[in-house]
């Protein structure tokens, strides 16, 4: 849509200035500092680097961080789809208020979310008190990490699925119904395949966000090494011990993971957009 409109080099000014400033600022604020992590870690040499990123305590943090992020993103995929569905398809009181509230995890500072969740899920908290007799402990266990990551990832799936659901042509569903499909069959065979790219993108976004999350987790996690310690916290621990190279090495692992996720998400969104364009 915009490709043909932007052949305007002759008329519009400011190309050199705007691009130059963009590249300079990007380089100084983002690229140069990020390269510092790689350079610092490479100073360790391969053997020391490998040892630093595969120590048992570090491996335990990967398992918790990536495992909890995966479970939280899966929870959000399921409930996010449900929330998006209810917000788009049904009418109920205060629907627009609920819709606006979905973005709360984006707007609420993570430290506030962290202490609030810790308070609610502690043994004496509003929800923790109800779970205690059932033998379920959330605060200060790995389960608490999953709860916090579910909170911060909640809007991603809703906000990626919602617009696609809104634009979904009802003719498809009518056609399926007229061909004899039940409502559940229509949902599974027609609607879900249509939503799949957005759903997977939302899942990946929630997962990527959860992997790097720090503020909301540390208050509820308990932070016991080997049990409830997340990777970002271990980076901070290494920094406090003045082990800058060790911290940089773990940071490199996290950066590579997030680059891979970013590429994946970009690919997904590119494919989803192309699919939309072809479909329309």
């Amino acid at each position: 849509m915009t490709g043909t409109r932007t052949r305007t080099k002759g008329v519009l000014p400011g190309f050199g200035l705007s691009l130059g400033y963009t590249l300079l600022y990007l380089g100084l604020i983002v690229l140069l500092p990020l390269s510092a992590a790689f350079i610092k870690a490479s100073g360790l040499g391969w053997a020391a680097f490998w040892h630093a990123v595969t120590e048992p305590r570090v491996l335990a943090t990967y398992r918790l961080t990536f495992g909890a992020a995966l479970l939280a993103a899966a929870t959000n995929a399921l409930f996010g789809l449900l929330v998006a569905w209810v917000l788009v398809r049904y009418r109920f009181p205060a629907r627009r208020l609920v819709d606006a509230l979905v973005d709360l995890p984006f707007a609420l500072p993570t430290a506030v979310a962290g202490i609030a969740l810790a308070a609610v899920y502690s043994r004496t908290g509003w929800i923790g008190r109800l779970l205690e007799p059932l033998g379920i402990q959330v605060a200060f266990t790995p389960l608490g990490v999953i709860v916090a990551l579910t909170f911060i990832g909640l809007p991603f799936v809703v906000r990626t699925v919602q617009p696609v659901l809104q634009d979904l042509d009802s003719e498809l569903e009518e056609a399926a119904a007229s061909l004899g499909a039940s409502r559940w069959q229509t949902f599974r065979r027609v609607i879900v395949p249509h939503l799949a790219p957005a759903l997977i993108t939302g899942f990946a976004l929630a997962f990527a966000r959860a992997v790097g999350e720090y503020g909301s987790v540390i208050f509820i996690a308990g932070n016991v090494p080997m049990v409830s310690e997340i990777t970002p916290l271990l980076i901070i621990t290494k920094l406090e011990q003045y082990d800058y190279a060790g911290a940089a090495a773990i940071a490199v692992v996290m950066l590579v993971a997030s680059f891979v996720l970013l590429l994946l998400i970009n690919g997904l969104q590119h494919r989803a957009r192309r699919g939309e364009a072809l479909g329309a």
Partner: protein
Amino acid sequence: MTSATLDTTVVTTERPAVRWLLTGVALAFLGLFLVVPLAAVFASALRKGIDVYVASIAEPDALAAVRLTLLIAAVAVPLNMAFGIAAAWAVARFEFRGKRVLVALIDLPFSVSPVVAGLIYMLIFGAQGWLGPWLNAHGVKVVFAVPGMVLATVFVTFPFVARELIPLLQAQGSEEEEAARILGASGWQTFWRVTLPNIKWGLLYGVILCNARAMGEFGAVSVVSGHIRGQTNTLPLHVEILYNEYNFAAAFAVASLLALLALVTLALKTAVEWRVARRHAGSVAESAGPQWVKP
């Protein structure tokens, strides 16, 4: 005609019982994960009475944290706003090689862990960092001081304005600007009189989100702050200190200020979305909405 409409409504929705069940489960999920924690902040803040609440906020360290939070946002947000406008102008108005890479790189800070964002500035400006010894010799403090906290905040809020403006400018096309130029307007006149009025709502939207994150950032700022009470404590860091001292009433009182900020942010953001949707019930509303979500 009427019977056809009736039929399609029946076949493209669910039975009332299913509808109520799904709505109930969705609202219960949101209530459990959003409303209960939010309510807990205010309830815990006021549990020891309004006097304790006011005293916790009016205390000198808390006020210093408010001032520092405002100061950091006042520097970081305009910097990223200027960058966002420049980046959007370059990307949406010109063709050049590597544009897709550039757009992906602009989004990069969103996928970097806040802790890593703080760490990279420690590696450059810290005592063991590249520039640390030189800065030390010249008496300049970057980390464990305000400049480092501003830098870390700029990093984590880097993409907010740019990612709102890029799709907006692309969707609007450049006919109006070209017309202004052909009619004799200078480059800056075109920008101030044509481009800026066209993008002001998207810009405001990006600034609101950027500001909320700048004031609420915890991980990145925590790494470079050094946690010096009354000096390098922002509001979120002050909440952490109070909480770790088991001073829960004060921690939640300060946290309630940040929760209020979040609610104001949501209200403003929703107001902008509604306004944009009313004005052009089409392309612009779309680009103002879901951009926040992308990585």
